């Protein structure tokens, strides 16, 4: 296959965590946007935070390779144990990040474009306030995946989050758009207060699926341990989800919540459980 553009100018910056921090490290500067058009030595001078101490990235990571001219052509590879590094790829708009192992909180938070691939697990608040791009996690994710930041009633607006493993609670709170696909199970509260978007849970859901939800879609392939009384079954439908077609029981809700009227018809949130 031809990827002319990629072959043309993609440059890789490899960060290896060689001197881990004592407390957690906040790496909001680790984005293709910040690395673009910078030499390795300049990248090493970018700030990271350990509590109140601001220090150069080079104190903790060894940097190999230069950034490309633009963020879109910059690829960042993180090696070493980044379990205690937060905010990688926060607010990124383009380019690519590959995290070879685990990472901590806020990975891909508020991201607008580009792609992040985490080969291990991530902690909570990843992909919060997401507007675009792709966040792929091969392991598990913590709580508040693709949720809205505290107090923000306009949550995830776009983009794709794909988690191969299971997720914690409060997934997709206040979701407005975009897609979240979870390979494993989800803990309580999925798409609470949702007003759009799609969440697919290929495993089981514990409960409170679609609570206070106004609009949007949820698919659950497994079981819902404690379904909400505010959802009512209205029929069976065949739907194509993530490339495969299956038969689903169709519920509407949350009947306890307000719902807009569009073209004379009340709009409900849809919950589909696989039959």
């Amino acid at each position: 296959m031809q990827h002319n553009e990629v072959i043309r100018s993609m440059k890789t910056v490899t960060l290896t965590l060689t001197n881990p921090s004592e407390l957690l490290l906040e790496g909001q500067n680790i984005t293709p946007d910040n690395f673009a058009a910078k030499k390795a030595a300049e990248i090493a001078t970018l700030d990271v935070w350990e509590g109140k101490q601001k220090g150069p990235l080079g104190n903790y990571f060894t940097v190999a390779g230069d950034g490309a001219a633009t963020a879109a052509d910059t690829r960042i590879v993180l090696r070493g144990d980044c379990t205690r590094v937060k905010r990688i790829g926060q607010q990124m708009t383009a380019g690519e990040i590959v995290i070879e192992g685990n990472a901590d909180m806020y990975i891909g938070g508020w991201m607008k474009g580009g792609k992040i691939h985490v080969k291990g697990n991530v902690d909570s608040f990843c992909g919060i306030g997401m507007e675009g791009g792709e966040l792929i996690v091969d392991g598990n994710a913590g709580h508040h995946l693709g949720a809205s930041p505290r107090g923000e009633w306009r949550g995830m607006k776009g983009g794709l989050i794909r988690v191969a493993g299971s997720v914690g609670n409060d997934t997709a709170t206040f979701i407005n758009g975009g897609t979240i696909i979870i390979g494993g199970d989800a803990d309580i509260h999925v798409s609470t207060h949702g007003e759009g978007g799609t969440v697919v849970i290929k495993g089981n859901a514990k409960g409170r699926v679609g609570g206070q939800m106004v609009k949007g879609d949820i698919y659950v392939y497994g079981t819902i341990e404690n379904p909400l009384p505010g959802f009512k079954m209205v029929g069976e439908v065949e739907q194509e989800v993530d490339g495969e077609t299956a038969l689903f029981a169709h519920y509407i809700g949350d009947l306890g919540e307000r719902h807009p009227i569009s073209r004379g018809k009340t709009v409900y949130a849809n919950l589909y459980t696989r039959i």
Partner: protein
Amino acid sequence: MSKKVENVGCPYCGVCCDDLVVTVSDDGKKILEVENACAIGNQIFHHATGGERVRLPRLRQPDGTYKDISYDEAIDYAANVLYKAKKPLIYGFGSTNCEGMAAAAKVAEKAGAVLDNCASICHGSSFLAIFDNGYPSCTLGETKNRADVIVYWGANPAHAHPRHMSRYSIFPRGFFTGKGHKSRKIIVVDPRHTDTAQVADIYLQVQQGHDYELFDAFRAVVRGHEIPDVVAGIRREQIVEVADILKKARFGTIFYGMGLCHSDGRNHNVDIAISLTRDLNDFTKWTIMAMRGHYNITGPGAVWSWQYGYPYCLDLTKRDIAHMNPGETSSIDLAMRDEVDAFINIGTDAGAHFPIDAVKHLRKHPWITIDPNICMASEISDLHIPVGIVGVEVPGIVYRMDNVPIQYRKVIDPPEGVISDEEVFERIHKRLCELEAEEVAKEPVKAAPEGVRVGE
């Protein structure tokens, strides 16, 4: 002649009873009698002069014992701990006045610390729900004078807020509620048949951890939809009956407690309770109120929201940016994730209230306790700084559970030489400024990376 002090505020629970009468001995050194207070409030006053008090700061020695030191030495120690730490945590404030909280916030900002209060393990989740969904609340006076339906959901005031029911909710005769108890309907929702449930007209024994489902059922019924036969252990007929009572009330208040904030889902349980309250306002007047625990735990929310825009879990490590996100910047999470390297426990007892693993993590680093009394935290600290008891020996402003500020007075003087929380923090702040100035004088370049945008 002993002296009677009237209209004294009680430094125990969020009800903030302000009708206490305290009798003080001739010499003004001993509290003889406390009238009108509940058993717990009574004890707080008597405890102040009933036994031996710690009068000097105590510093842990290499052999594990405590040694008395001067306040100056203690202030210097605390300031140095804060100055050297990368991410110190200052937590507590359940039992102090707003003046002390404001002074502590100054210290936290200067030291680049995380500032948190007991709401973090209590009604903090209510704040999150309020951020997301608003707070259709009222004052306790409105409830007393207007409410004819009272709901206690996941709260047990009979034990936790002993005079709440008699002063504001169930028993008092108010302006429009002249028949008192007789004209009020009391509904209690709790998995346990508590002593509060004993006085209820209707008791709903909700299945533990399923309050959210029950609220959802109430909301669906209020909007005229069908619900399953049984929800969260409650029969449909009973849900419909109670929903009807709620809709027909003249004025109602939902008081909720830890049963909502600290069972699974936390803020979402409160959030949906707020949604139900809003729904009911399509029919009649309904309000909701958090049963805040300590007498001034509403205070830090008010003070710090004014200072920084957030009520709790304030990460001030970036100094010019306040960041707040419980789950990350909340005390327990910081401790469990080993994110902090110094701890100040003030006006609470983290030693007793935190999970043991959190205590173990915090104990790896310097731990300072600022408290009038000997408590579990003071006994495992590196430094214990005694202070005067607010509401007994120190006056100040406190916020009642309905966000009404009340000026508390003192009835006696603190033990000789013992200072207030506010003074401790003011002096720590002064010492921090001195340390910073010393650093700048020594090596101007090295002082720069301390978070503040020096030179910008």
